[in-house]
């Protein structure tokens, strides 16, 4: 509401400013000739000064003056013919009222209708300082602080935390970078490799490229039981085109998954969907763990 009132006030102020000369009306000022003469008189005075300073000989000054006199005469002539030819004196009251009405209605109406098409009146301003409660910003500040600390004082636990913050904020590239540092610092930590693989996959819209595949393989080498690792290794097979192999890995994972595990539903869904896509029944696939050597 305040927004619209402000707009209305602004438009009203502009209309008042535009209407002012219309209502003040035609106060006569000097005619064109007066403006010309002002300049010519000034030019004459300049010639006088130049001559006095000796920058022009008296003859030169006289010739220059004669030229300006000629221009003054020509200007008088032009003014006389012009005044005779056009005896129009303004456009009258009616035209002024029409103009005033057009200015008072047309300008605001035009502005409001164009604004209606282009503007976003319902979207409030979001200055950075006023976004303290914005989860994105909180994550951002937290992450920046932590990153600065870690640069001075690196630790595997710190990078894990940093990666988690970035991951939750959907900033997967940065999350992957943090997890990669974690894998470097932590030594053989299966969870770190697995998190790295997941962040890399998410950064690529879920596509598991060789880098991410390597991370999962590394995680699996260190820990054969981790559910996330096994799930993604199955997904990698599916993306590679081997749906049977994917379902085999997932069915193997399904055996070890408690009924109430948070990911159980997703896992079952994947098995069902991919079997359907491959045109086979899931029961016909023997459960099989991922390859250890890869």
């Amino acid at each position, binding site marked *: 509401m305040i*927004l619209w009132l402000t*707009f209305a006030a*602004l*438009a009203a102020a*502009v209309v008042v*400013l*535009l209407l*002012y*000369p*219309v*209502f*003040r*009306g*035609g*106060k*006569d*000022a*000097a*005619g*064109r000739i*007066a*403006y*010309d*003469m*002002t*300049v*010519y008189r*000034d030019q004459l005075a*300049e010639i006088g000064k130049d001559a006095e300073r*000796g920058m022009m000989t008296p003859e030169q000054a006289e010739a*220059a003056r004669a*030229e300006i006199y000629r*221009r003054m005469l020509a*200007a008088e002539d032009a003014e006389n013919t012009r005044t005779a030819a056009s005896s129009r*004196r*303004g*456009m009258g009251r009616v*035209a*002024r009222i029409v*103009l005033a009405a057009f*200015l008072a209605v047309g*300008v*605001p109406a*035009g*502005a409001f209708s*164009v*604004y209606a098409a*282009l*503007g*976003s009146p319902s979207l*409030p*301003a*979001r*200055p*950075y*300082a006023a*976004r303290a409660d*914005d989860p*994105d910003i909180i*994550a951002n500040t937290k992450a920046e602080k932590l990153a600065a600390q870690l640069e001075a004082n690196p630790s595997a636990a710190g990078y894990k935390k940093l990666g988690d913050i970035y991951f939750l904020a959907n900033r997967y590239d940065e999350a992957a970078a943090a997890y990669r540092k974690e894998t470097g610092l932590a030594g053989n930590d299966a969870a770190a490799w697995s998190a790295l693989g997941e962040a890399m996959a998410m950064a690529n819209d879920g596509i598991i490229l060789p880098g991410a595949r390597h991370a999962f393989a590394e995680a699996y080498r260190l820990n054969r039981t981790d559910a996330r690792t096994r799930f993604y290794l199955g997904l990698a097979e599916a993306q590679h085109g081997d749906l049977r192999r994917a379902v085999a890995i997932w069915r193997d994972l399904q055996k070890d998954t408690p009924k109430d595990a948070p990911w159980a539903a997703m896992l079952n869904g994947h098995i069902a969907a991919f079997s359907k896509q491959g045109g086979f029944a899931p029961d016909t696939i023997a459960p099989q763990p991922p390859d250890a050597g890869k």
Partner: protein
Amino acid sequence: MIPELGHFALILALFVALVQAVVPMIGASRGDRAWMGVASSAAAAQFALVTLAFGCLVWCYVVSDFSVLNVAQNSHTDKPLLYKITGVWGNHEGSMLLWVFILSVYGMAAALFGRNLPPTLRARALAVQGLVAFGFLVFILLTSNPFLRLDPAPPNGMGMNPLLQDPGLAFHPPFLYLGYVGFSMAYSFAVAALIEGRVDAVWARWVRPWVLAAWCFLTVGIVGGSWWAYYTLGWGGWWYWDPVENASLMPWLAGTALLHSLIVVERRDALKAWTILLTIVTFSLSLLGTFLVRSGVLTSVHSFAADPSRGVFILALLAGFTGLSLTLFSIRAPSLKGGSLFAPVSREGGLLLNNIFLSAAMGAVLLGTLYPLFMDVLELGKISVGPPYFDMVFIPFMTPVILAMALGPMLAWKRGSLKTAFARLRISLALAAAAIAVFAAFHVSWGVAASMGMAVWLFAGTMETLAERTGFLRAPWRETKRRALGLPRSFYGMIASHAGIAILIAGIAGSTAWQSERIQIMHIGDSVALGGYEIKLAKVEDGIKGPNYTAMRGIFDVSRNGVQDIALHPEKRTYDAPPRTTTKAATWGDFPHNLYAVLGDPDPKGGYVTRLYDKPLVTWIFFGGGLIALGGGLALLDRRYRVGAPTRSKYAGRDG
């Protein structure tokens, strides 16, 4: 609310511009004061609204409101405050808003200082100005709207091109635009005069201050940009005949010609049709410059984004404004009777010569700039026209201008005598000949010797003109002083600008002839001898934290005759957002040297690639350029441009 307020103000400005373009024009043709009066109040409203819109955008940048798309794309919370503000015009949308903002400043100025103008002329000129504003506001709102929003707002912005993160961004674009857009004022006056059917000495006097102001700003903008390129880009040059540079040089050349032809119109009522044409051409070239830079036709640090629809739109504006005025011109030109006659050898003749050669030089630059574009558009292959072409065509066209520049002010109006003029310049002739002989003896190329000779000729000739007018050493001292005080400021402006050109030429010749350059891999403690200096790489500090970058800084100790007195600190900076590396050259200068150091990449063996230049006289280029602009400013202060409005008593009672 602030971003939306700016958006609404800008839209309101569009409709005010429409009113400003139409109502005063009708009023002027019907002789109605009330309708004409709308011009001034519309110009004031226009100024207030665009200022408000611009202020709102600045505010969005300062508080980092990333719900504004333009801010999110071009800013970042880590940017220092100065670059948050200058970053407003460090991108396409914002710079177009700056363009329109400056246009509204000129409109306001014409409304304020235009009291000495006849009401019809002022109303028509402001109406044309309103039309230009309307065209550009439509362009901004439809293709380059800086107030489009983003929901949800991203956590941070994408940052600005680090090359632009320099104080240069604070002055270069605004001054350039003050120049480009200032020529729109002259254009508006020309179109208004064509509609009125009157171009005369009085008109020239009314227009000249606007041309002077625009020309001064453009000069500062170009020289400043050149200086910025010199100290920041790290290649040691200051001008590359890059199309974007040419885009600013072309209106400058045409504007310079215009400045001089207006003198002839004012003084002698001659060259009128030519002057009007030149006015149209100058503004068209300003628009062409905007088109080349803004359309994305060229890719460089100046073209922020390529978007074909924008290019087509600006091209349409350019065609519209040029076509409109040229059509009017073709209708009215036959009635623009040339006034007085003059002999070929005369002040007018000299100014005409200057006009012809400046226009030819401008044409050559135009050809070289557009030719590759046409080739590309017509799919005839990609070619690039580089410095060799421009040096080859530009220098021959400018040489007569420089030679005549010293001579012209010594010629009388109407009919002058070359013999007398040369006789008055005999000292300059002797000095120039001596300079050529001395420089040629010191094994520089003939081109450099000739350039130095020209610089000496122009500088000495300009000083001799000053001596001549003041009667220096010929008249008694008291008389000289009296004359010097009595001379108009526009005369001193001419002296300063012409002397500035001389210094500029000397700077160009000197810095090309005597520059020395060393590119090598230096290890800590290594020294290089350059231009009589011993430059030692003392150490390299890494990981220096800037506000939003990390720098590697080289510490060079410079010693002369074994005494170490200067240190150069070039940096290589890596910015955080967007992640990009820039070089920051370090310069140090005394008379006549200018040392220039760039720190490059480290090599695997612990050395660093370094580039060191000694560029003698290079600062003269920028100093000379500054003096040229200063001369324009002096001329602008001439009392004749402050002749007041006529009093109403004598000729009152008639409509404008």
